[in-house]
């Protein structure tokens, strides 16, 4: 049943990313914590919301450009990780967060192949819509136009469902078939120390992406000033 709800959410995310309105409810910072909140795992939603928001800030859906479907990837990572119970200390195990991060990145890559397919399909679909308008067929025009919204939603639904199921399979492969019932203490203890580094690594990669997006020759001095001020104030507070 979870797969259906994830896929429905994925359809909305996919629509908002490129096709309809683009009011940014698709952003990881919105959709991941919301999913976490709904399934009772807000900490996982916050983790992926922050991490994936940073990672995908550098890419945007422009014209004919191919771009990673990072928003769907973030949702799938959150949903897959939220399916594994917390460790003994009440926190999610780092192995779960690390594996889900990889699943999210791979999903985004898979998604970058889906959007061009939908656009190719629209190249053949669009003339029918124009023809209906030229013939003055109001109903057919509306039906075809909103049918195209359905095609986008369907693509988002299928991509999310497939990625979620593959993600769950990868989890079962690495963590054992009963991972959904909880991880063994030994496994968490063995992996936590090594994989807790995924958080600083994600922050580092994300900070580089944001810096790459904003810092240019003309704004470099503002970057350096705010970095120094941030470090100074933070040093005093911490």
């Amino acid at each position: 049943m979870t797969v259906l709800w994830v896929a429905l959410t994925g359809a909305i995310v996919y629509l908002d990313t490129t096709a309809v309105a683009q009011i940014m409810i698709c952003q990881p910072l919105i959709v991941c914590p919301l999913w976490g909140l709904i399934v009772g795992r807000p900490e996982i939603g916050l983790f992926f919301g922050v991490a994936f928001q940073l990672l995908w800030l550098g890419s945007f859906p422009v014209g004919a450009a191919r771009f990673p479907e990072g928003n769907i990837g973030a949702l799938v990572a959150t949903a897959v990780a939220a399916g594994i119970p917390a460790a003994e200390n009440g926190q999610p195990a780092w192995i779960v967060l690390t594996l889900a991060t990889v699943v999210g990145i791979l999903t985004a890559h898979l998604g970058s192949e889906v959007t061009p397919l939908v656009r190719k399909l629209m190249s053949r679909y669009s003339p029918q819509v124009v023809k209906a308008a030229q013939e003055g067929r109001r109903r057919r025009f509306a039906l075809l136009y909103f049918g195209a919204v359905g095609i986008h939603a369907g693509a988002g639904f299928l991509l999310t469902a497939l990625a979620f199921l593959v993600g769950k399979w990868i989890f079962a492969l690495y963590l054992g078939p009963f991972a959904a019932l909880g991880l063994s203490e030994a496994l968490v203890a063995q992996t936590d120390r090594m994989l807790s580094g995924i958080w600083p690594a994600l922050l580092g990669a994300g900070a580089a992406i944001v810096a790459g997006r904003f810092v240019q020759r003309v704004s470099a001095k503002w970057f350096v000033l705010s970095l120094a001020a941030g470090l100074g104030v933070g040093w005093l507070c911490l």
Partner: protein
Amino acid sequence: MPLSRDEARHLAARSLLLQVLLNYRTMQGSGYLFALWPWLRRSESSSVRVKACADYLNAHPVFGALAIGAMRRRIEEGDVERDPTEFGKWQESLCGPLGMVGDSLIWDRWKPLLFSLGVLLLLWFPAIEVWAGVAIGCLLLYNVPLVRLRVWAVSEGYRLGGNVLEALGHPLVGRLRKGLSIAGACVAGLLLASGVLQSGSTAWSAAAQFAVAFALMLLAVSRRWGILWSLLLALGAALLVPAILLVLPTQV
């Protein structure tokens, strides 16, 4: 006669579906047809006009509202019937400027700035209550100005007609671009500082992992490497840092 406020709002609302038929042949073309359709189907010689509206055009979805207003004005004045070839060339001439200005202001600066500010807040106050405020704030701050911009753009496009690109020469455009760049650079600096402080406050190895991922990703961004492999490389290399730190002293 200027476009009425209601008509401008109506066209702006329909511009939200501009990208539904986005395709490699006409790009957003059919989206402009959808936006103007309620008016077009009541107008004369609509078949020629429909074809002209659905021709190749690609702009930023918000700045495309300028094109919607301008197309409506030019079609009303009979420009499509008078010289369809010139109308098509004019449409194509809008693509570059409307796309570039919209992309550089909204995709490149406004959206990343707002959401990285949200991330910055959540890094220091990681609570779901704070997130609720951040999410509502980001959505309102992002959408309210853009809705107003769409309505204004439709009216302004209609007023300027064929000279719609004059709207992009507004001094505010340049000032906004510069201001958002500076604000973005400041947020990027604060984010980097936050990352350093948060990683460094836990363990030296975490700080090293942060630094390795940052350096590799910065290299990837500057060299324009593919995002997927760059991310996997940066994250993988960072995860190996503790193992290297353990091995190094024994080797020395």
